[in-house]
């Protein structure tokens, strides 16, 4: 029984931090936002070279192991530097889907994902309603011999830029997975900027004509969601790990600020009230890390165990971590709400993560739904 990092893991962490602090400092990040408005291809290529795009996947499909703890270490680092590329969406979720589907076709796609050659994406909205949305938002319509895709999806992430998008459609109790090229006509995407400088998109399929060969896989509803629930939980945990990286960083920034900011002739960190509140924050971030580790080491345990642990992490994020983030702003005083300081950007990110992949009440329900005995 051991919850310390292996040498390999220490290495992953150090390398990630080295790269990100060099190329993804707060200032660099601001430039990226101004230049590219967010997604930054050059860095995506770097991610590939660093091996990050393959970290989630086993060797047999060309990945670099797929060890969950290694992956979560990276997610933490991506979080603590507020990287703008939707890694969870354009790598993790779509890649894991291809891995689970397992066909030579998908293996090629996976290879392109891991090498960063092409950008793939999966069409869904990362909210508690993902099931209903997948089942109801899109439908196939036959019109005089032709097959059309109709419908629309709101609040989709990771489709601002893509080469191919994987679209799930229900057709009599089966899920058909269509892989559509970005070049296709018959659809329209509108991107909206979010409070954390990501892009949240609406996509409309007015009447996109589908070709048989665009179907890359077909499976029963049940099978699909057994696979996808697993991936959804993995993505949720990744989000919590990013949040953990953020909370750690917010804590450091706040502790620093309290040590340096002077009022009444002394650092505000010398006031006992501030001290005890910082101690509470310290404890909170450690608790968050402990729950995160628990979810990692038990991720491949029984399904209920996995679900409970993931939900517990999301509940913690949506309650105590959120409150802690608010405390960090409070202790920064006016500077906490000024856009030129980094602390507020971390706050916006936490705010976003609290919402994505299910609200706190959804996860309370999910946790409590499992037997307490």
């Amino acid at each position, binding site marked *: 029984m051991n919850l310390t990092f292996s040498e390999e893991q220490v290495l992953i962490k150090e390398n990630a931090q080295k790269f990100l602090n060099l190329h993804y400092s707060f200032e660099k990040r601001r430039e990226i936002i101004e230049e590219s408005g967010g997604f930054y291809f050059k860095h995506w290529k770097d991610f590939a070279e660093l091996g990050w795009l393959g970290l989630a996947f086993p060797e047999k499909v060309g990945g670099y192991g797929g060890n969950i703890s290694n992956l979560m270490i990276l997610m933490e680092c991506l979080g603590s530097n507020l990287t703008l590329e939707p890694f969870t969406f354009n790598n993790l979720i779509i890649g894991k889907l291809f891995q689970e589907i397992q066909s030579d076709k998908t293996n090629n796609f996976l290879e392109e994902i891991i090498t960063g050659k092409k950008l793939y994406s999966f069409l869904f909205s990362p909210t508690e309603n993902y099931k209903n949305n997948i089942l109801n938002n899109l439908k196939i319509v036959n019109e005089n011999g032709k097959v059309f895709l109709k419908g629309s999806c709101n609040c989709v992430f990771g489709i601002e830029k893509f080469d191919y998008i994987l679209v799930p459609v229900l057709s009599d109790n089966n899920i058909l997975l269509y892989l559509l090229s970005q070049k296709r006509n018959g659809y329209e995407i509108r991107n909206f900027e979010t409070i954390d400088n990501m892009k949240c998109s609406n996509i409309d399929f007015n009447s996109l004509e589908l070709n048989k060969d665009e179907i890359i896989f077909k499976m029963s509803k049940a099978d699909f969601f057994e696979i996808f629930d697993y991936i959804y939980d993995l993505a949720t945990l990744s989000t919590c790990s990013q949040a953990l990286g953020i909370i750690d960083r917010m804590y450091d920034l706040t502790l620093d600020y309290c040590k340096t900011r002077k009022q009444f002739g002394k650092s505000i960190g010398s006031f006992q009230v501030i001290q005890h509140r910082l101690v509470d924050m310290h404890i909170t971030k450690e608790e968050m890390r402990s729950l995160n580790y628990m979810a990692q080491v038990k991720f491949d345990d029984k399904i209920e165990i996995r679900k409970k642990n993931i939900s517990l992490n999301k509940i913690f994020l949506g309650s105590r971590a959120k409150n802690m983030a608010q405390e960090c702003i409070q202790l920064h005083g006016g500077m906490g709400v000024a856009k030129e300081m980094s602390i*507020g950007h971390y706050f916006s990110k936490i705010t976003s993560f609290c919402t994505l992949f299910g609200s706190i*009440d959804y996860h309370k329900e999910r946790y409590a739904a499992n037997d307490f005995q």
Partner: protein
Amino acid sequence: MDLNLSDEDKNFRKEVKDFIKKNLSSEQQKKIKNGGSYTKDETIKWQRALFKNNWFANNWPKTYGGCEWSPMKRYIFDQETAYAYTPQIVPFGVTMVGPVIIEFGTELQKKSFLPKILNSEHWWCQGYSEPGSGSDLASLKTKAISEGNNYIINGTKTWTTLAQHADWMFCLVRTDNTSKPQEGISFILIDMKSKGITVDPIITLDESHEVNTVYLEDVVVPKDNLIYQENKGWTVAKYLLSHERTSIAQVARSKSAIKKLKMIASHEVFDNSPLIDNTRFRDKLTELEMDLHSLEYTEIRILSEEAKGSSPGPEASFLKIRGSELQQKISELTLEAVGAFGLIKSNSYNQDNSNEYFPGAEYANNVGAEYLNLRKTTIYGGSNEIQKNILSKMVLGL
């Protein structure tokens, strides 16, 4: 103890409602309800309408053109205007510097400033905080050097609300470095058009521009603009503070925010039924209503005491603490209620850097920004930590 309004107060409530109907369009109200904000012109138009009705300077004595409302009337007015999403009176002039000039000003100062406050010709801002002096106001460094009939002022003021619109700023400056911090400060009025003043915007998390940094470089200010005596500015500032009214609790605004939240929750769906029917959500609403009502009745208790003649003591500062916390909690639950749409930047009525339109329900527009924006409420106007220090000293005697 009873809650019945006097007939006079009942009539007054009706007058206020009628006044609002006459002076504010439903389009305007809708705009605000959906997260927009009033322009400078709209605000001034509203203030002038109030002035025409002799309702503007409700905390001034009649002799100066005020209307000397009873605490209860002020309470009713605040309620009705909040429910109707009217513009908020910009406090820096009529609520803050006005009473100061009335109490400490020379005849000349009264003659030249009070009328222009009343007719909203002057937009005022408050020059207190500095980069190095937030909670510890007395440590302010902006220097005023006496030179003949003028002061030459150098320094930096920050978090200056709406300075971008301001014609005048009332300002705390250091006129003496030798004595104790509080004793070297003076209260002075500065024309924002003076040479050497630069106003730089501070953009906040929600992308909005409410606050500014004001740089003063060799700004020449005639000594006639000094309020009360040199180095007695702290006395003036304390007087001003003691006149900030209990409406800092923002009960009425929180009430309509909760009303809006319920409306949203009855439209949003959770687990295939209206969100408002969800037990967990209802319990959170219960929490908010518990906060709201305890705040509301605490305010009424204080008003009742006031009506009996006792002046609002430092107790009032816990209305600020709980009032600001409540505003934040409401915006937090509202954000939860609208889900992912709350993460999308608003399409905002007078802001740069916003989406050209908002994809979600009208009511969800700006909910995220509002949550971010309201973080300030527990920080500004004396952070809640400072408020607790005050209560501990003044009320608990610690």
